[in-house]
Structure formats: C-alpha cells, structure tokens
C-alpha cells in the first residue's frame, strides 16, 4: 500500500533524512525508532506532505503522491497524528473530531464508533481542547485522525509525557484500528514498547536508516539506535 523509495527531505539547505526505503501493506504496522533528532518526525511529515520531498518517491495505492499537498494526501487516506497533538485549542473536543469529516472519507469510523473506542474522549466531548490533560489530548488527537477513516495512520510519539496507564489504553486501541485494514506507521522512542506492538522496526540514526527488519534481537537494535559499533 505504501512504498517509500530513496526518500530525502530537508529543512532549507539542511538535509534531515536521506535515502529512506520502507514499505507497509494493508493492515500492517511498522515501528520507526531512533534517538532524539534522528529524523523520525521529519520522515512522517514528509510522507504526510507537510514537508516537501527533496528526492525519492512516496507511492501510495499505486500513485506517486510525493508532489501532492498535504490536504490531498489526507483525502486519499494518509492521516497523521502530529507530534505534540496539535489539537485546535479553541474548539471543543467534538468539534475537533468534526473537522476530520472534511477529509470526506467514508468507512467504519463514524463519530459514534470512535467515541465507543475512546470513552475518555466521549466524556470530554464538550470541553475545549485547550483545557484537556495530556492523555485526554492525545486520545482526542488519535480519535480525530480516526474520524477521517485513514488507510494509513501516522502516529508520532503518542506516548510522550503520558502516564503508563493511559499509554496502555492508547496502545490497546491499535489492534482494533489495524483490524479495519488501516496500516500504521508508528514513531516511538521506547524500543520495548515499539516491539510490543510491531515485529518490524525501522531504526533511524542521524537521518539515515541504520537498521530495518523483522524480529531483530534487542542488542542489535540498541546498537543501531545509539550508533555504537556492532560485530556482525
């Protein structure tokens, strides 16, 4: 469903990711791991269209979408939960979810279905998004993305700064989302948590792939994560 080939992107003159190759199929999940500043968010932003592609291609459902604006990619089903949640602070939780209806995508995730999945969000429906706790905000951000009925869901560090109980709750929703055929690209700094939900990892180091594959030993991953030498 998604085929990223030799993808590079830059902030002005500074290249932030280089020659990234990755693929993900319908209902699949891939975890992107790496240290601070490795380029994880940059990779997601480039796939979502918030950052222009410098070179390489992003093929989604057979079309190269790398030249399309972000809103057009969203309408095709590439939906991102951005780093830092980015809720519309002056809108209520319910209104935040309604904005995603503008992607005009039909599917299993109606407003009601999303509220069923996240009772926490349903309880806060009429609260202004600016007045939510971090966990409530993150759940609302994921709920908003689901309302757009994503084919590919890009999740950027959903666990950042949250209590373990709420992280558990959020991660428990992932298998249910995958069941609908949605693919998930998950950015996570905590390697063991990433391995819990995904067999396959893609490790970035200073903007380039340092390791990618399935069922890799934790020692090998940590070497790739920190960029330390490993004996192969």
């Amino acid at each position, binding site marked *: 469903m998604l085929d990223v080939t030799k993808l590079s992107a830059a902030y002005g003159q500074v290249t932030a990711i280089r020659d990234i190759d990755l693929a993900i199929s319908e209902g699949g999940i891939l975890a992107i791991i790496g240290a601070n500043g490795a380029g994880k968010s940059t990779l997601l932003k480039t796939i*979502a*269209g*918030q950052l222009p592609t410098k070179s390489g291609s992003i093929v989604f459902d057979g079309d190269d979408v790398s030249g399309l*604006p*972000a*809103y057009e990619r*969203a*309408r095709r089903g590439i*939906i*991102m939960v*951005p780093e830092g949640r*980015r809720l*519309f*602070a*002056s*809108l209520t939780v319910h*209104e*935040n979810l*309604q*904005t*995603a*209806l*503008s*992607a*005009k*995508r039909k599917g299993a995730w109606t407003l009601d279905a999303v509220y069923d999945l996240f009772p926490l969000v349903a309880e806060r429906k009429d609260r202004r998004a600016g007045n939510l706790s971090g966990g409530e905000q993150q759940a609302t951000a994921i709920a*908003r993305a689901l309302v*757009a009925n994503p084919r590919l869901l890009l999740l950027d560090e959903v666990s950042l700064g949250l209590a373990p109980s709420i992280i558990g709750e959020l991660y428990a929703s992932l298998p249910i989302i995958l069941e609908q055929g949605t693919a998930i690209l998950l950015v996570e700094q905590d390697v063991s948590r990433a391995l819990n939900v995904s067999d396959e990892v893609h490790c970035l180091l200073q903007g380039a792939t340092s390791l990618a594959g399935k069922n890799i030993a934790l020692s090998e991953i940590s070497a790739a994560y920190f960029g330390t030498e490993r004996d192969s």
Partner: protein
Amino acid sequence: MNLLDPLIQGILLGGLYALFAAGLSLMFGVMRIVNLAYGDFAVLAAYGTLIVVNAALISPLAALLIVAPAMAVLGYILQRTILQRTLGLSPLPSLLVTFGLSIIIQNLLLMFGSADQKRLSLGGVDTASITLPFDIRVGVFPLFIFLLAIVILSILSWVTAKTQYGRLVRAVSDDPATVDLQGVNPKQIYALATAIAFGLVAIAGLAAGVQTSFNPTSGSMLLIFAFEAVIIGGLGSLWGTLGGAMILGVAQTVGAAFAPAQQILAGHLVFLLFLAFLPNGLTRRKVRA
C-alpha cells in the same frame, strides 16, 4: 437639550458601521490581515453600483444583486493571487500590499470617475421616516440598515458557531498547518472568508452611498470608522463589534448635538478613551500573538 434623539440616531448609525466592521474583523480574525484597502473596496462597490444603476436603470438594491457577488468573486481572486502571498509571521507585507491597493483603487476611481461627491438614491425611501413613541423620528433607511446589520451578524455568528465551514474557520485561525492534515486546503478557507468579507463590503458600500455620499477618497474615513468599531468592540468578537459600532455612532451623533461641526472628532475621542482604559475592548478577549 434632547439627547434621546441623537442617541437613537447614533445607535442606528452603528448598524452601518457594524456592517463595515464585520468584514474587516472577519479578515483579521481568520488570516490576521489588516486590510487597509477595505474602505476603498466599499467605495469601489458603491461606484460599481452606480454604474449598474445607470446602465440598467434599476434600483441600487437590485444592482446589489450583481455587485455583491461580483465583489465576492473579486475578493476570492485577490486572496488566492495576491493576499495569500503576503501571509506569514510578519504583518508588514500584508499592510504594505493592502496600503498599495488602497492607493491604486483611489487613483483608478479618480481617473475613471470624477472627484465630486456622488450619491446612490432609493427614491422616496432616502428621506422617508417613521415616528416612534416619545415623538422620535427615525429614517426608514437607517432603520433598515440597522436591522440588516443585526440579521447579517446573526447569520455570520451562526455560520461560525454551527457549520463545518465555521469550525474550519476557527480551526484555521488556531493552526493552519494542522487544518491541512484534516484534508482541507487552508487557502480555500481564507479565500472564502475574503469572499464573504467582500460581499459584506459591497452591502456596506451601498448603505453608505445612500445614507451619506461618497467620492474616490472617502474610503479612508470608512476604514477608520470600521477600525474604531472593531477596537472598541474587542478584536475577534462579532457582537462586540456591533457594540463598538453603536458606541462609535452614538459618540458621533451625541457629539454633534453639542458641537455640530465636531461629529467625527467626538467619535475619535471616545475611541481614544477606550484605547487608553479598555485596550482589549468591550469583550476583553485576549488576542493571540
């Protein structure tokens, strides 16, 4: 001295100013653009109405059915082509560009029109008045404009509060980049908001053209009144804007009751008082940076 009469006239005048201020406030609220050419677009619309009236021999109100949509289309195109490029962190580019537009419009009107005062006429309605209790006479047209202002502001606030477009307008003024991620082109939201503002400016231009008179440079004064109404009312609040417009109108008419030549000065003074003691305006809403 009877102050009730100027008070009522001032409130009605506030309706006219509110019509002006609503569009200005909309553009500022959505795009953070201060459109310095706003008054000139109102005058442009008034001239446009005059041309249609003379060419088609119809009433200005009927002409408005052509001019208001035409202005809305102009606003849409202007936003997509020129104003969109001025958006950014600094307000300076949009100030410079709209200031330039203001000069261009004034000079085009001077070139193709003439410098003398023009007026739009609705026939007998211009001077018709009705008598309210306490022997207060109010003009039918100012009363109509006041009611129209209330209706239009009600529609605008309903659209902002309840419709998907209104939600997106509020979302885009919170965070345009994230609106993009919801499958919406922020530029489209901006252009539609500008189209609405320009449709409003056409209505306001017609109202001003009937109620007072206009010449190629009278846009600057209209802009100042709209500005003052928005600031007195508090940025970003439609009903605050109506309140601000009424305060400005009352200040002018009551001022004129004391010193007939100093009507406009009285309005400015009240505005300055607000700026000094209530800089956030009536509604006291904090402006986001």
